[in-house]
């Protein structure tokens, strides 16, 4: 106990170098645990976004790309697929339910998605949880919209409010379909997925707002009023993608094969779990590189600590001699130096953990709005504790070097210093 006390006091005596060492160690711990946390949480967030969907079908491109634009609203579709193909495939005898989606419009930076009422009935996230309404109900008629939780919160929208949908996916829309406003009829509960940042309307509504558009722009003098558009034939001709639920997951391969070999139109069907796994395999290298870098940063931090202690040893030989003269044995000197280093590592790790949680607290809303990733601030996982333990153990191991050196000095010097 006396040694611990002495170690603390000795550190306090050199508080400037000690605190700088602490900064280095805690920052390296923040980096190591932060990388790990971000990796795990982003995986969790991605995995929680889609559940219970057997196949996603879209225009032929890459499986990762299809997954990203259809589910995560990251990137854009290469092409649309025809309504006819959708109808034919969704009436397949092994298909239980289907959700068509149509993307490409936005409202003040939030994506607008055209779909059917089946979306609120069948779409599942986070271990087969269904969407639920905080207020209101699904859309019934043409100019009605259902908002995700974040859309309503950030824009301050309430039920029965009128909103205007813009063309294109940018945050600032210069061309808007302002002659056909939508009324908010429902607001969804928070899900922690991109659904929160989506405005849902019917497929017919997507058709209606584009009905007086020709060749990619609104022609002057050619406009169709909201009422007239509603009366027109609004059957969609194409959609962006669709999700399928099968009667049995065992027929996944068969249906997948049939869709990929569909002769009428080049289509791509993916199993969401497989596509997600492929994505992880792909970015696995980057994750490993990041982890390796942060491990090296921790090593640099610990080396810095050892350097500081080693350089201080020479000036402290007199101190050691005094300690020896009051009855300290060389083993005590060894314990003192080791205790100092371990204290630095422990406090540094603790500070790093605190700093990390502080940072996450501030960064969480930013990450969510910027990337649509929901970072859950929970207790550190077992793996994070393992990493932390590894840092502390390596701290103890490297501090054996200065402690042993001090031990040798005190053996050689005894009570008088011969330099």
């Amino acid at each position, binding site marked *: 106990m006396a040694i611990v006390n002495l170690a603390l006091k000795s550190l306090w005596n050199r508080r400037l170098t000690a605190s700088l060492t602490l900064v280095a160690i805690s920052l390296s711990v923040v980096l190591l645990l932060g990388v790990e946390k971000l990796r795990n949480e982003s995986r969790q*967030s991605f995995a*929680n976004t889609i559940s219970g969907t057997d196949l996603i079908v879209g225009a032929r491109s890459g499986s990762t790309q299809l997954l990203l634009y259809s589910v995560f609203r990251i990137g854009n579709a290469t092409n649309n697929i025809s309504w006819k193909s959708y109808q034919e495939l969704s009436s397949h005898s092994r298909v239980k339910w289907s959700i068509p989606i149509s993307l490409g419009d936005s409202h003040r930076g939030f994506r607008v998605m055209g779909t059917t009422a089946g979306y609120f009935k069948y779409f599942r996230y986070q271990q087969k949880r269904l969407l639920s309404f905080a207020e209101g109900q699904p859309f019934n008629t043409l100019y009605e919209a259902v908002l995700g939780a974040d859309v309503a919160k950030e824009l301050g929208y309430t039920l029965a409010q009128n909103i205007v949908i813009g063309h294109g996916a940018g945050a600032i829309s210069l061309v808007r379909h302002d002659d056909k406003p939508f009324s908010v009829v429902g607001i969804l509960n928070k899900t922690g997925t991109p659904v929160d940042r989506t405005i849902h309307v019917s497929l017919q509504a997507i058709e209606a707002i584009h009905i007086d558009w020709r060749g990619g722009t609104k022609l002057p003098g050619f406009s169709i009023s909201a009422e007239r558009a509603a009366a027109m034939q609004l059957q969609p001709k194409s959609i962006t993608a669709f999700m399928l639920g099968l009667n049995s997951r065992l027929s996944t391969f068969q249906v997948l094969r049939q869709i990929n070999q569909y002769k009428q139109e080049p289509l791509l069907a993916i199993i969401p779990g497989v596509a997600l796994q492929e994505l992880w395999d792909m970015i696995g290298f980057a994750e490993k590189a990041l982890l390796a870098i942060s491990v090296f940063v921790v090593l640099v931090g610990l080396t810095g600590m050892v350097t500081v202690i080693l350089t201080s040893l020479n000036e402290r030989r007199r101190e050691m001699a005094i300690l020896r003269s009051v009855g300290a044995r060389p083993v005590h000197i060894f314990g003192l130096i080791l205790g100092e280093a371990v204290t630095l590592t422990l406090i540094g790790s603790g500070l790093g953990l605190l700093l990390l949680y502080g940072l996450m607290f501030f960064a969480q809303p930013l990450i969510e709005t910027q990337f649509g990733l929901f970072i859950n601030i929970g207790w550190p996982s077992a793996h994070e504790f393992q990493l932390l333990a590894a840092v502390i153990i390596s701290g103890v191991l490297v501090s054996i070097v200065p402690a042993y050196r001090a031990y040798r000095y005190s053996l050689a010097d005894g009570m008088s210093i011969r330099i």
Partner: protein
Amino acid sequence: MLRKRLYKYSLLTVVSVVLASHLNTTLMNQAMAAGPAAKANEKANEKASEQAKELDWSDLVPADWQPEKLFQGISLEGIEDDDPRAKVYLEKMQKIWAEAPVVTKLDGKLVKIPGYVVPLEDDGTKVTEFLLVPYHGACIHEPPPPANQTVYVKTGTAEAKIRKMFDTVWVTGIMQLEKIDRELATSGYTINAIKVEPFE
């Protein structure tokens, strides 16, 4: 291209029939009650996995299933790729594959089977549902394996850390038969896993 695939189908058929003829019918007696085993603790699971009947993929094919009879009258000789008959034959074979029957007496048995993982559901830390297939790459490039060569695995509370796509694992659990297609009255295999461990 088509013809190549036709050959592949017939080759697969021959292989599976040969395997099926080796089916040992006397080894299926170690029945275990489904309910208690699934809820049992780790120790009981250890015991269960020792008692589990180790299966081979050929054990999943009924001994009396002879797809070569269904393929009778199909001659691949002299068929060109663009022959309309080739397409008809291919579709017929795909249908036979999709309707492949199951070994009904495996229902409710405690089994242990090795295979490759095709992940379906993931909660971020572990794969909770996956398809187990007998060979690497199934489903991606080639015709899918027949219905009786695919097992749907639900891991439930079992620890199943799948490291990558097509990871090879041993799955231990209760085998159940599940209706796939009501119209065609076909069913397939489902395992409620007690244990999923790496194949080493």
